[in-house]
């Protein structure tokens, strides 16, 4: 069973505000699911060279070319706060 403090620590890392009730339910649910994940301990050991990319397909990057984008107004309009066509953010430092 993971502790309430662990739940709070993870929530802090994940930038999630949880209510007391949510923390209690999360403690129960996470413990149950993590117990189930422990099944993996039984799986065969693999050598390091066999672990590779998640999907093997060749990734084909596009050319990094400048294109005209007309969506700026729409994108800024979706933000909760803007000033002079820029997204406004609270002071960070």
């Amino acid at each position, binding site marked *: 069973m993971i502790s309430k403090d662990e*739940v709070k620590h*993870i*929530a802090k*890392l*994940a*930038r*999630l*505000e*949880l*209510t007391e009730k*949510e923390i209690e*339910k*999360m403690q129960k*649910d*996470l413990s*149950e*699911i*993590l117990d*189930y*994940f422990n*099944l*993996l*301990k*039984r*799986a*065969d050991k*693999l050598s390091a060279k*066999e*672990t*590779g990319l*998640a*999907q*093997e*397909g*060749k*990734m*084909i*990057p*596009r050319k990094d070319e400048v294109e005209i984008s007309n*969506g700026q107004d*729409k*994108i800024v309009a*979706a*933000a*909760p*706060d803007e000033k002079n066509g820029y*997204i406004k*953010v*609270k*002071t*960070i430092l």
Partner: protein
Amino acid sequence: MDLTSLTIKQAHEGLKNGDFTSVDLTKAYLKNIKKLDKEINAYLSVDESGALEQAKKVDEKIAKGQELSLLSGVPCAVKDNIMVDGQKCTAASKMLEKYTATYDATVVKKLKELGAVILGKTNLDEFAFGSSTENSALKTTKNPHDLTRVPGGSSGGSAAAVAANMACFALGSDTGCSIRNPASFCGISGLKTTYGAVSRYGLIASASSLDQIGPLTKNVEDAKIVFQAIHGRDKMDLTTADYNFNETTVDLNSLKIGVPKEYFSKGLDPEVEKIIRDAIEKLERIGAKIVKVSLPSCEFALACYYIIQTSEASANLARFDGIRYGLSTQDEDILNVYLKSRGKGLGAEAKRRIMLGTYCLSSGYYDAYYKKAQEIRQLIKKDFKKAFEAVDLIMGPVVPFPAFKIGEKLDDPLSMYLADIYTVPVNLAGLPGFSLPVGRIDNLPVGLQIIGNHFEENKILSVASQLEKMIE
């Protein structure tokens, strides 16, 4: 004639022959939506005027005698995690309830270029997290075959819309089960495409190494038509492959079908098992060879999947921070903007998955969970690779049971996750998988899962279409 029961091909023939217009067809669907969707709740938004406008354009083309593509003038629905420019795109989350898409997803762009009519956007589990559509923060969709039961998920709105004749076809997305599971529960065809076959540009990411867009349709031929329309290389998604679909006809006499014992293990409803075995037997009787195969690592697939899915999802959902778009709770302190916007905007399952993923990726646990899961993913791939050296296709159930009651599993996340036990290995290995309706328990449909090797959708579709005819 009930226009809404027509397949894509039949609708196309009717339009071409002038039996009815695209406006007639679109109106018939809109009428069904008005009549039925109050109860089924498949749609989150319906774009009546946009749909009729597009239908009119197609009718004008027909009047001028211009060539029609198969999808031209055919009304469809789009899962609400796929962007349609200028339409709301909510992912069924409070976080995006008021968000309007600023561009077309590549798949939508392709449908529009072919002249398809987009009726509206369909319900899903919030951010596609779920197997019943009950995790939608906006609506509870019901199964058209039994209104007390779930339609499956997470593309439950798309599946219910097609099954109830509220769309001729629909697009869904599949990360672990989300096209095949609702197709099975609603008794329609659903194709989860090979990873890289269809562009994910404009799909709201759930888990990027697993997500794929695919069709939900009334029959196998329609699934083929839609897949042909949406697949292919896209410069906006570097994981898409340079691959062209080539139709084939598989001779059932030389077909080898792998039946994995892991897909008939404890927990499988005996009535589902009987229906699946009967369907496979039909192919055997006509000459297909049944080969017993083993996918031993599939025992770990569900745990492996939920570690990788939640880890990727926790990173993908970091973008919902109350700053750039979506729900924002204002506060003087920026950290509180993050905490409160996310606390208020995200639902229980989204929070649970972010917490699980963050835990699995956190210092001290990364090796035991995320790294281990990546290793097991390789083992699962190896199992399938080995199996496909001996067989053409693999068959088994889609879900261990038919559609369950609304609310039955909602408070027990682990039991909900278990619904995905037969579908997640396919996503982990990046393979294509199909759900074909092959029987019913009382009035509840049961789907057969047909799994193919990478980029062998053509084999799946050929065999599914031949089996479909034997079952009708």
